[in-house]
C-alpha cells in the first residue's frame, strides 16, 4: 500500500511570513489536491493538479501559490501569513477521474 506524507505536521509562523507546506505520495497518482480545513467550515479546495507541472485554482486560491514539479510531490505556499490564522491543510491524491481520494494527515498551521 501507498502513503501520503505531509511535512511539517505542525507549523508556527509569524505574520507576513511566507510558509511552504510539502506533500509526497507514492501511489503514482496523477491528481493531487490541497484543501484547507477550518472548524465548522468543512474542506475548501485551494489548488489542485491533474498532472506534473499542471496547476488549477480552487475556490480559495487567493493568498496561496502551489507547485507540482514532480508527479509524486505537490507543495503549497502561504504567500503572507495572516495573524491569528489557525487551520489544518490537507493534501490528497487520486489516480484517475472518478476514483476516491486518499488524504494525508494534515499540517496544522498557527500564525502568531
Amino acid at each position, binding site marked *: 500500500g501507498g502513503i*501520503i506524507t505531509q511535512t511539517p505536521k505542525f507549523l508556527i509562523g509569524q505574520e507576513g511570513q511566507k510558509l511552504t507546506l510539502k506533500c509526497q505520495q507514492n501511489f503514482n497518482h496523477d*491528481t493531487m489536491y490541497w484543501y484547507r480545513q477550518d472548524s*465548522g*467550515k*468543512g*474542506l475548501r*479546495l485551494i489548488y*489542485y493538479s*491533474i498532472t506534473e507541472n499542471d496547476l*488549477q485554482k*480552487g475556490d480559495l486560491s487567493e493568498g496561496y501559490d502551489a507547485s507540482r514539479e514532480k508527479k509524486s510531490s505537490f507543495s503549497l505556499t502561504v504567500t503572507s501569513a495572516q495573524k491569528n490564522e489557525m487551520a489544518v491543510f*490537507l493534501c*490528497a491524491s487520486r489516480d484517475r*477521474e*472518478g476514483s*476516491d*481520494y*486518499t*488524504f*494525508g*494527515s*494534515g499540517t496544522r498551521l498557527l500564525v502568531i
Partner: protein
Amino acid sequence: QQQVRQSSQSLTVWEGETAILNCSYENSAFDYFPWYQQFPGEGPALLIAIRSVSDKKEDGRFTIFFNKREKNLSLHIKDSQPGDSATYFCAASGRASGGNYKPTFGKGTSLVVHP
C-alpha cells in the same frame, strides 16, 4: 450558495443506537456521493460511497440511503460504538457537471457516541 449541506454540525447518540447523519445537495448533475470519516489528528478516509443509480448501499454497520428525487441522502450507523466517534463528511461529484476532479464537501457532522 452551499452545494452540499449537512443538516447537523454535531450529533450525540448512546452506544448501541443507530446514528443518522443527513446530507442534501443542490446540483442535479452530481452522481457520486462518498462519505468520509475523520478522526482527530488524522485526514479524512473514505468510509462508504453510493452512485445515483442506486437508492441504498450497505457495508457492515454503515448504510447510505439515497433519494434522487428529493436530492438528499443519509448515512445510518447501526449499533453505534464509541470508536465511531468522529467527524463525517458528505461529498458529491459528477462528470456531467464538469466537476469530477473537484468533489464538493459538506461542512461535516461531528458524531459522539457515549458508552
